[in-house]
């Protein structure tokens, strides 16, 4: 058994870590946090130059074709430094959707731009508050043009095009739902940035008013393709969350070793030690679940759906737990703007929602486990 990343993949991790330590400093993240720009353009360019955007995109479409395990490795490193770039929107969502459902022509048209970073894609899915479900999709396509309002759209202000989830008919059934590629720089698109709890990632509202829409995948398979894309993205985001959780744990550990109170390092108090031990436990469980999902993703296993949901839930809980407790270990200093604790706290709470809230993923996991149980019986 070798349930671990290979030596080559670990080398890639080290390379990414070195690069990000230099380029994605707290100062750089704060440029976006404080609204100086919508994302870190020079970091984005650097990631593209190193070929990180295209590791899972086949060579014939402009990537390096290394694979999804390599993408998981990079995701973890991006999560560790709360990178303020549209990586998830463009690569885990848009590129994955096109690789999964696109025709050869569509792959040739869109993937090279995504791999080189010249084009940025996203997924326009949500339509306001509430749980992710087919019934929540109201956007409508008629005569090849989409109308409706999507909010929040991650990186909606930045993206060049979006995969839009919309209805192709009006039967009200799930089979009406289809995926479309829509040029966000063209006509019939109106967008504006929205404030959010995590300004290091852009959020936008996009109003479509007869924008030209190009069908992606079969018109009656939109919802099942969407869930498959979300499963794949969940695995990759889980690695970002694991990276963030472990970084938060390290920050808490380091602070507990340095900070003195009552004449001793606070890390010598059991009340503090136990907080950190519990952070280690949740981060470790999340990492192990993420590994299994990475294996399922890279081998296109039939267990991917269940593994992705488990990884998503585990990593979401771990990152939220670790980022929250990191502030607690830091005490008052952890609640200052100056310390980086809040960057992780913000990111953990934003990532927890981006692919649909916890209840959606709990349903995915339990339904899939139940199906497997019934099949086994």
């Amino acid at each position, binding site marked *: *058994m*070798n*349930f*671990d*990343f*290979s030596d080559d993949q670990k080398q890639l991790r080290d390379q990414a870590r070195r690069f990000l330590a230099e380029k994605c400093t707290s100062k750089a993240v704060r440029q976006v946090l404080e609204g100086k720009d919508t994302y870190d353009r020079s970091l984005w360019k650097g990631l593209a130059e190193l070929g990180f955007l295209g590791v899972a995109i086949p060579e014939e479409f402009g990537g390096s074709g290394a694979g999804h*395990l390599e993408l998981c490795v990079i995701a973890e490193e991006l999560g560790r430094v709360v990178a303020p770039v549209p990586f998830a929107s463009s690569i885990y969502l848009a590129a994955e959707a096109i690789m999964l459902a696109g025709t050869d022509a569509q792959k040739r048209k869109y993937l090279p731009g995504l791999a080189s970073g010249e084009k940025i894609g996203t997924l326009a899915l949500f339509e306001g508050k509430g749980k992710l479900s087919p019934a929540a999709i109201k956007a409508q396509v008629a005569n090849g043009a989409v109308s409706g309002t999507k909010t929040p759209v991650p990186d909606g202000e930045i993206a060049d095009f979006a995969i839009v989830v919309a209805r192709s008919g009006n039967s009200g059934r799930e089979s009406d739902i289809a995926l479309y590629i829509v040029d966000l720089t063209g006509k019939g698109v109106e967008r504006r940035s929205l404030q959010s709890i995590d300004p290091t990632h852009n959020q936008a509202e996009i109003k479509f008013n007869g924008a030209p829409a190009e069908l992606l995948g079969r018109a009656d398979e939109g919802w099942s393709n969407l869930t498959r894309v979300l499963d794949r993205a969940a695995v990759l985001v889980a690695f970002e969350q694991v990276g963030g959780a472990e970084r938060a*744990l390290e920050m808490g*550990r380091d602070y*507990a*070793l340095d900070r003195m109170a009552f004449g*001793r*390092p606070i*890390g*010598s108090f*059991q009340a*503090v*030690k*136990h907080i*950190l*031990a*519990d952070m*280690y*436990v949740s981060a*470790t*469980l*999340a990492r*192990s*679940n993420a*590994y*299994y999902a*990475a*294996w399922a993703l*890279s081998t296109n296993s039939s267990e991917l759906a269940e593994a992705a*949901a*488990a990884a998503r*839930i*585990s990593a979401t*809980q771990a990152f939220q737990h670790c980022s929250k407790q990191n502030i607690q270990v830091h005490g008052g200093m952890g609640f200052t703007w100056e310390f980086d604790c809040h960057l992780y706290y913000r990111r953990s709470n934003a990532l927890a929602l981006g692919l649909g809230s*916890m*209840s959606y*993923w*709990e*349903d995915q*996991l*339990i339904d899939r*486990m*139940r199906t497997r*149980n019934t099949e086994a019986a």
Partner: protein
Amino acid sequence: MNFDDTPQEAKFRSEVRSWIAANAPKELESELKEASLGRIKLKSGDVLQLSKEWQKKKAKGGWACLQWPKEYGGRGSTPIERVIWQQEEGIYNKLGAPFLIGQGMCGPVLMTYANDDVKKRYLPPLASGDEIWCQLFSEPSAGSDVAGLRTRAEKDGNDWIVNGQKIWTSGAHYSDYGLLVVRTDPNVPKHQGLSMFFLDMKSPGVEIRPIKQASGASEFNEVYFTNVRIPDKQRLGNVGEGWNVALTTLMNERYAIGSGVATGFPEIFDYCNSLMTEDGPAIDDRAVRSKLATWATRTSGLKYTTYRTISALSRGERPGPENSIGKLVAGSMLQEIATFALDLQGAAGVLVDNDQKEVAGQFQKMVLSSPSSRIAGGTDEVMRNIIAERVLGLPGDIRVDKDVPFNKIPTKGRA
């Protein structure tokens, strides 16, 4: 990233598989499958006897204590081969319970500290299950602080005379020998005044009494020592170095890697999947799903953490204290699950009456027995200290009794 055996591992696995297929006591298979929680009982016969028979068979086939040297009844296997054996032995593993402490903890101490004669005499029958060993460490006033133990041994010629009391000794009543740590010098700080011995459990002056636990069951014992005479040649390690010898034992708690700990999750999932409420199946309830999902991911998280450990073994690395998370996570989960299952049953959840208990009262049993899973083998708090100090590198606690002679350490709380 894969779950595949190396060619060498695959060859070993197929050898194990065919031996088990030809030799395992298949007549016990269904009963062992059901015996999922707690101490097992078998209708087919006396568990201890059946366990000894299986162990004997394994020993004859060369499959006992795989990682021990051949000359002491083992097979000289690598750690990964032991894990493969354990995976393939599957449910028959449960028959190994009476030997776990002797083979997992006492054996390694003998291997490290005993002379050749002692090793040749005692290790082979320990491996074959002919002789069972227990471990006599904990005391009523020495639990997490085991080095604070008070059982005394005083030198008398070539013997030592032991007086005191041990507690929580699993299997003392059917054990032939015991590994015993005692205080040989109360005038020095606590860690420096301990010595390790082994003794015949039938020695005059040894009295074993079962403990009635909070759950009502009796799975452990108290062992009393009244002027028990132990020859000095049964000492392991130097006088005053018993703590270091004890640490060797405690380090071998890692023996459990890959065997899996009870979480209660399969039971609660099946229960919620089959339970009908007035609003429909319990598993369709939003609150139920949320809890199941969290427990499911903790359970799978533990499983794949074990896989990562096995991968490290397969690469020839030695796994470290990271493995303490298994017990920590599983123990409290078991308790949460049991409490939740009773709540699903409403007021009737209180019942264990034969006529009216739900799913054979398994969750009621779990409620009452689960507190021990957070204490035995290191409390949750001790496990967290281990993770914090040995994995995360945080400083040890300030020890107020560190340089104080043992007999000057305060023993009263509220005066």
